[in-house]
């Protein structure tokens, strides 16, 4: 059996799954596929932590969402299972499958991680055939647990069992003769593939410094060597507003690298072996318990990935300056008491020397799908007045910044409105003479009053008839263009 065909087969099996990892008995990554940037770090860290602390037996399943045990934000749970590929109970035949399950996010302006939701450290929840309902019900009973937790988790365990069975069969076919030799060949193939990938990376050092606030900055020294890529964040400060964990940071570094190389978001251990991350404890890129995480995983990841993209470009073209991309996901929530509506409004990306920015570019947005207006209006007591591209929000330039988006909603019942935007700079800076992009904005019109612009985050009890307008930022423009368009 050809080792590369194992990779292609696994890729096919999980064609409709976007975030999962498969680890061998040593915790080495056989396959990892990411939908969001941080997944590359979280999916592997979760699997390795569960293996290290829980020592699952074949067919046993664990659940975890704790960001400080490798997880993402608290609405994102990971199911981890151990399975056996062959009849022989050799250690070599044990594998770990990790799948991400995203529940509907809740936006809570919290000062402590435990105020953001229920936090579950690695916890065994029984076997494929007999899930431990007591534990699952206990998690579901937490006041901050996601809605329908029990039924969704039970369905996912069933699916995980099918997936593990399929992958187990596949591995059995491939590892039949000599598992050790096969896995050695497998990693050798990917080492060669990563070598080819690194051959295309210009050697050198690129340094950037982007502001994180009035008194701290994000400092990155990217050192590209033929055999390694070092992301050194030494000197990076912290932010009061948000930060991300080191595992999420590793994921963003890997995803940004792959995206910059035009490579699919899928990888194996061979790439992890080449990435070196230096993330000072307590900084923006390695925040500590009990800092909350939600804004870090939404806006922080988008900001870091923008900073990384501009650093990579600097490696290729040292003189280049990137126009700012919008990074705030403009998350907001309407709590009607018995129902909660969550949404976000995606920003535009910055113009670049190669071309204009993208409109409402999903820069690692939480959701890719936009739900139907009619379906939302049929469920929630609210009415959309507009959902459009935010005109003239992208900075002008030879290559203009991508526009943001507008969403305007009228409340048909009293609701508590919570919103959280990020805006680290007075303007979303253009580059090389390009103009700034428009910053994000939230405007509320109470019945019988004038429009009132609001601060970047907050929570308000609003009466029926209130109109909420959420405007995401546009990207900065690239290149000077005079008023005549020249």
């Amino acid at each position, binding site marked *: 059996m050809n080792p590369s065909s194992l990779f292609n087969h696994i890729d096919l099996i999980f064609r*409709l799954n976007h975030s999962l990892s498969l680890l061998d008995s040593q915790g080495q990554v056989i396959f990892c596929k990411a939908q969001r940037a941080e997944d590359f770090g979280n999916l592997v860290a979760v699997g390795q932590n569960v293996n290290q602390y829980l020592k699952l037996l074949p067919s046993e399943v664990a659940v975890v969402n704790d960001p400080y045990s490798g997880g993402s934000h608290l609405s994102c749970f990971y199911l981890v299972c151990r399975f056996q590929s062959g009849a022989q109970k050799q250690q070599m035949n044990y594998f770990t499958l990790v799948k991400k399950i995203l529940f509907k996010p809740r936006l809570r302006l919290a000062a402590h991680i435990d105020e953001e939701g229920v936090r579950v450290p690695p916890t065994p929840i029984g076997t494929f055939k007999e899930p431990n309902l007591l534990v699952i019900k206990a998690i579901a009973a937490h006041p901050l647990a996601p809605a329908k937790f029990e039924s969704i988790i039970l369905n996912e365990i069933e699916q995980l069992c099918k997936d593990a069975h399929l992958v187990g069969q596949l591995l059995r076919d491939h590892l039949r003769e000599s598992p050790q030799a096969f896995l050695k060949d497998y990693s050798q193939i990917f080492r060669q593939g990563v070598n080819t990938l690194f051959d295309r990376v210009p050697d050198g050092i690129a340094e950037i410094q982007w502001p994180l606030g009035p008194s701290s900055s994000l400092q990155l020294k990217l050192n590209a060597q033929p055999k390694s890529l070092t992301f050194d964040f030494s000197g990076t400060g912290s932010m009061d507003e948000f930060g991300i964990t080191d595992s999420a940071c590793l994921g963003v570094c890997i995803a940004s690298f792959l995206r910059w190389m035009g490579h699919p978001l899928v990888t194996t251990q061979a790439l992890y072996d080449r990435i070196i991350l230096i993330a000072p404890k307590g900084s923006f890129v390695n925040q500590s318990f009990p800092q909350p995480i939600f804004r870090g995983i939404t806006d922080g990841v988008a900001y870091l990935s923008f900073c990384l993209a501009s650093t990579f470009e600097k490696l290729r073209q040292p003189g280049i300056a990137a126009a700012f991309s919008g990074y705030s996901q403009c998350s907001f929530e309407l709590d009607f008491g018995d129902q909660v509506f969550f949404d976000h409004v995606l920003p535009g990306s910055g113009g670049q020397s190669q071309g204009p920015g993208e409109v409402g570019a999903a820069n690692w947005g939480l959701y890719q799908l936009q739900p139907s*207006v*009619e379906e939302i209006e049929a469920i929630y007591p609210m009415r959309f007045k507009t959902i459009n591209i935010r005109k003239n929000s992208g900075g002008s330039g030879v290559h203009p910044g991508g526009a943001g988006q507008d969403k305007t909603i009228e409340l048909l019942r009293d609701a508590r409105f919570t919103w959280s935007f990020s805006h680290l700079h007075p303007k979303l800076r253009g580059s090389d003479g390009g103009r700034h992009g428009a910053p994000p904005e939230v405007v509320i019109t109470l019945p019988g009053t004038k429009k009132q612009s609001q601060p970047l985050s907050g929570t308000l009890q609003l009466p029926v008839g209130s109109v909420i307008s959420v405007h995401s930022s546009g990207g900065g423009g690239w290149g000077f263009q005079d008023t005549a368009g020249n």
Partner: protein
Amino acid sequence: MSRCLSLHVGEFFSEASLRPASETIHLRFANARWSSEKILSHIKVKFAFDPEVLLLNYDLKADLLKGRTQAPAIITNSGFEDWLKLSWPEPPNGAFFDPVSFINPDFCFGVTQRVDAQGHVLESLKSEEIEFLIAKLKMIGCRSVAVGLLNSHLNNEGEIELRNRLNDEGFVVYCSSDLSIGSEKERWSWALLSATLDPLFDVFKSRLDQSFTDLGWSPRVFIFTSVGFKDFSEKEARASTLLATEHLLQQSIESENFCFFGVESFYESFQHSKNHLMAPWHFSPKNSNWPKVKKSLLQPSLLLARGPYDIVTWTDIEAGFEPGPICLGKGLRPTWLDIFSTVASPEFLVDLYEVKIGDARYRIREQLLQIAPSEFSLKNIHELEYALLKESFFRVASDRGGAFLANIDLYGPLAEAISKWLKKPVSSRSRLNSSKVEFLSDLLIEAFFR
């Protein structure tokens, strides 16, 4: 039985069947050399056949429509002009048609009208706004118009009013409420597709009419759609032709678990899941007739390439086809059909492509060696071909866990060659009289007389 001619027009090939005739006649033509008009003329000359009924099935790929037809205008509620564009995610390769690609942002217009989620009219259309809109549509020279208003499935007064007014001015209007199910995203996309297809079908129709005049024919013409045969001049059915072949196979093949290996497309039966509910062309007007057949992940012109980390892998991209399919060594990169033809050379394909299989095989292997790992040479490249083919069949029914070999019936012109390779018998279980399903044009006739 009426003298019946059926014509299945695909991307690479067209198929024609005649009935009744002195002998069973099925013909297959390469589109690069044979236009539909030329095929009709050939049938008249060679078989002296004068059909009373002409049955048509168009298997159009949506990406082909781009550039062939002018983008239609779209009218939506004011404030939602960009919604259709924003609401659709980028479709995965080969999975769905992408309605966004048919939108010209300069042709999107909003009108002040709103219906709430209970179907009550909150704001009615304003006649002066409609007049202004008509002036703008005339100015841009757009004849086809898609109208999509929010909650029109509950109350379509606004859409009907717009249609009536625009019809008076000579515009062809497709309303989203013609589709009775789905949210605004599906309904608006359906209206958009209908409006996009309309001018193209007008061209097809005028060419056919011209051919009939030249040949002295006056057949009744029907087109196959997701709701069965419709009169070719019936405009409302045009968007429902996009999945007509899938419906045709579903109607014609008895097995619930099958693969159809056609000369230019492979299909498979499937169970619906939420992943398949997004495409509006699964619908048809006033009908919820969803096919349980879809194009397979494996296609004959699927390209092979170096994928992630330089691994040789099947892509989701199909090879080009103008002029003619770029298969059997004609292209720069090997396709599935290329690799398959090196291990099993289906005779009729060789005739159809007019290639010498020996030369083609040499070229294909040269191409494969260019992307193969360094340990492969002409001496052992067959090992890689074998592995790649084996892997390719895993794509069939992969969303059913790749349970391909165990329990799927095989049909279609390539089924026999594939079954030999897989050592699996071709199924003869079919609603058809014939034991083999070789020609889609045959299925059309069977469906018509059933």
